[in-house]
């Protein structure tokens, strides 16, 4: 009997702090597997934002830099310009990237910074207690929208992957999900593609991952997978919104 699946070397043996059934653990694993498959672990620097993703340095054995709230794209810009041979990625949640860090992400994308962004969209502020985020769905109850999100007072959920795809500097923009085995495999392929874009110096690459937050959605882990399928995907469609094939922008 031969071992055909085990922990990838870049993923440390630390037990995660995530709640039971949080798909963040899957996102971390496929990210570490993507780094190992590309063989770039020794020259990759991760920049996790603030939120549940903040302890990335415990779980993935690469160098990391901690950025203040929402400022990870700005830190990544400096890091990439100072060390262009390194592979730089951000790992941010929706509260971090779509709310406090909107300015940084849009301008980093518009400048076409040669970085990769992993964006976890779970439609709430997970770590701080389930407050309403810019990506919260219409009608979704959170601790700060107890009657459900209303577009007349709180606006509409923001679609980051589509919005960034309109910018000229963006080379790759995709939205994937982690609610089924097939989608997990597609998510891993999208992350590898995004890293390849950076390795080939094509420009800014971004993968939005629909993730669960069953604790703050107040459902069981398995029901949370159905929430992604039935409520999130109809509003946040999966797919590749922009993929640059050549350096036509030069």
């Amino acid at each position, binding site marked *: *009997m*031969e*071992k*055909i*699946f*085990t*922990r990838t070397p870049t*993923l440390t043996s630390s*037990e*995660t702090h*995530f*709640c*039971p*059934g*949080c*798909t*963040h*653990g*899957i996102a971390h*694993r496929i990210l570490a597997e993507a780094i190992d498959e590309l063989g770039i672990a020794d020259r990759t620097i991760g920049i996790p934002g603030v939120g549940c993703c903040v302890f990335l340095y415990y779980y993935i054995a690469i160098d990391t830099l901690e950025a203040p709230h929402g400022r990870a794209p700005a830190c990544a810009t400096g890091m990439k310009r100072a060390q262009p041979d390194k592979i730089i990625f951000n790992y941010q949640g929706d509260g971090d990237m779509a709310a406090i860090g909107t300015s940084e992400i849009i301008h980093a994308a518009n400048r076409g910074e040669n970085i990769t962004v992993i964006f976890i969209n779970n439609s709430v502020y997970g770590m701080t207690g389930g407050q309403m985020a810019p990506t919260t769905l219409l009608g979704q109850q959170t601790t700060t929208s107890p009657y459900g999100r209303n577009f007349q007072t709180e606006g509409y959920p923001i679609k980051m992957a589509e919005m960034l795809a309109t910018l000229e500097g963006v080379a790759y923009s995709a939205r994937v999900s982690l609610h*089924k*085995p097939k989608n*997990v*495999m597609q998510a891993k392929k999208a992350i590898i593609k995004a890293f390849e874009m950076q390795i080939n110096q094509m420009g800014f690459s971004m993968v939005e991952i629909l993730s669960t937050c069953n604790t703050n959605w107040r459902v069981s*882990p*398995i029901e949370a*997978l159905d929430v992604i399928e039935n409520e999130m995907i109809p509003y946040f469609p999966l797919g590749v919104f922009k993929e640059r094939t050549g350096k036509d922008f030069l």
Partner: protein
Amino acid sequence: MAYIKIDADRCKGCYFCIKFCPKQLIIVSDTHNKVGYFPAQFLQEKEDQCTGCKTCALMCPDTAIEVFK
């Protein structure tokens, strides 16, 4: 044919592996682990039915599953 090894102390009891196992070879354990969750457990007696498809390991958020074939 194939079998899986579940690290019971890492398992947090989300049971994604039970939901996605195409052969229903994983059940909930009767005994709790060191942190108090009831972990998933592989049915050793049905080992001959496991095809080593790795679906359980692919969906495990805590990387608690190793697959042998």
